[in-house]
């Protein structure tokens, strides 16, 4: 499925001279405010957002940005939602040289927000890298994206060169292409890759903030987190808190797709309801039965339950879901959620790093069991415990929590959620065989073979 990065500000006619970004301005868009009608390159970026405040912030107290980040309440936008300031502080307190890694690899097939940011607002992300490096005292910085994205790599190399010519950054930023595999964007995978190894997760502890790239304390932030940091450094923590909820401040990028009229990347205040997000994308294009929120590490929710849920980590967790990296996929009533999930679990099984037995053997078995339920049911085997829902439940319990990383847990959470969000579908498949929805073309996007690397080097 093609998912063009579009924004609500997209089609507006370009201004000759962009208005200077005004800090107290509208609460959204913030990150995406700079996207329309801007001269390309560093010049347009500085016109819109003002110069990089690295020297003013650093004077005397390099840690001031960490204070600002903590006070702002910014949390990681890559999926885990860890407090940004706290992570920076623990890296800054570590021994020796520090390293900053910007994670723009965006392993989630249904997410486009990081690619949009890096393509259209690379300097905002690079500002964040420079500021974070200054704040934690890093001597090295890396910006990691998928190595299959040639045009993106070129854009970023160009932006880095432009900044180097202007002598803007306190540290040399290197753009790195990672193998395009689902688990390669996991933070320990990136660290191992930068250390010369394969881009697969490692056994922890030590975690990257303790011992990461070249053995040094390493700060790994998602690129959207860094872009927010670049705005907080300019406009302050109180400005940042003006959007969102007191318990979950700021804005976040969401990627909306599936059965909506205008799929794309949108910027929302945290706490916006899932239903409002669907309406931002001009609403459903056909009747919906559910939403998949959080991507393939997230969870299905029935549409009625999902609609009022606030888009925050806490709000979605309370509803049995996960915010993840802000992915919302609208599932039309004519689709079969079991079949959709079966295809994704097959993909996740193929995307195992091949390291941990329960993941290597368990995910393909789970994919088989789910595919059987989806496409052939378990007719005549109702009481056979080696098939159907009983087997799926057993496999979930066998796989969960038994990998070095959370890859197998993401898959089991997705399967658990499809069974609890659509129990009647699951029962129907088991008792009566496939529903008519399995014949519909797949809704959930999966990368084509040409986009995937087949090793981790």
């Amino acid at each position, binding site marked *: 499925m093609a998912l063009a990065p579009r924004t609500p500000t997209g089609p507006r006619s370009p201004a000759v001279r962009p208005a200077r970004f005004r800090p107290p301005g509208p609460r959204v868009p913030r990150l995406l405010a700079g996207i329309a009608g801007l001269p390309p390159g560093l010049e347009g970026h500085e016109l819109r957002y003002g110069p990089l405040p690295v020297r003013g912030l650093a004077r005397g107290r390099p840690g001031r940005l960490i204070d600002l980040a903590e006070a702002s309440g910014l949390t990681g936008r890559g999926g885990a939602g860890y407090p940004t300031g706290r992570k920076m502080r623990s890296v800054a307190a570590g021994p020796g040289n520090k390293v900053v890694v910007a994670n723009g690899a965006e392993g989630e097939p249904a997410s486009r927000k990081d690619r949009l940011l890096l393509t259209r607002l690379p300097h905002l992300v690079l500002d964040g890298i420079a500021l974070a490096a200054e704040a934690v005292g890093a001597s090295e910085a890396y910006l990691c994206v998928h190595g299959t994205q040639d045009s993106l790599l070129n854009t970023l190399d160009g932006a880095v060169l432009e900044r180097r010519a202007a002598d803007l950054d306190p540290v040399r930023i290197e753009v790195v292409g990672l193998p395009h595999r689902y688990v390669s964007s996991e933070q320990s995978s990136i660290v191992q890759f930068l250390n010369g190894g394969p881009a697969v997760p490692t056994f922890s502890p030590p975690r990257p903030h303790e011992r990461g790239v070249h053995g040094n304390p390493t700060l790994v932030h998602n690129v959207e987190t860094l872009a927010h940091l670049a705005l907080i450094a300019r406009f302050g923590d109180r400005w940042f808190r003006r959007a969102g909820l007191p318990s979950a401040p700021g804005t976040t990028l969401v990627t909306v797709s599936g059965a909506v009229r205008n799929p794309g990347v949108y910027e929302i205040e945290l706490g916006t309801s899932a239903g409002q997000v669907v309406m931002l994308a001009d609403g459903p294009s056909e009747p919906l039965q559910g939403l998949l929120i959080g991507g393939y590490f997230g969870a299905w929710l029935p549409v009625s339950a999902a609609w009022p849920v606030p888009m925050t980590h806490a709000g979605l967790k309370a509803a049995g879901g996960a915010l993840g990296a802000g992915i919302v996929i609208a599932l039309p009533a004519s689709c079969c959620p079991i079949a959709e999930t079966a295809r994704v679990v097959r993909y996740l099984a193929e995307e195992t790093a091949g390291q941990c037995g329960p993941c290597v053997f368990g995910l393909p078995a789970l994919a088989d069991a789910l595919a059987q339920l989806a496409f052939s049911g378990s007719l005549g085997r109702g009481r056979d415990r080696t098939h159907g829902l009983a087997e799926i439940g057993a496999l979930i319990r066998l796989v969960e929590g038994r990998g*070095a990383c959370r890859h197998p847990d993401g898959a089991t959470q997705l399967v658990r959620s499809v069974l609890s969000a659509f129990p009647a579908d699951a029962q129907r498949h088991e008792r009566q065989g496939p529903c008519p929805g399995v014949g519909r073309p797949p809704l959930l996007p999966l990368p084509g073979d040409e986009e995937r690397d087949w090793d981790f080097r």
Partner: protein
Amino acid sequence: MSLTLRVNPIACVGHGMCAELLPEVIELDRWGYPILTARAVPRPLVDHARRAVRACPTLALLLEQNTGKHR
């Protein structure tokens, strides 16, 4: 402070020695990989646990002082 067992799932290739030597705490799943039925090792089994750790051909079984620092 207690001793807890942990499996490094990357290093483990399923030899199954640990389940032979410490069946009270370790059983094998259907593919032959260890499942810890309890993480804390009961005191009378500590020597057996150490033996299982030493016997692992890939050094994948770890016996750790549980300081509460790491999950």
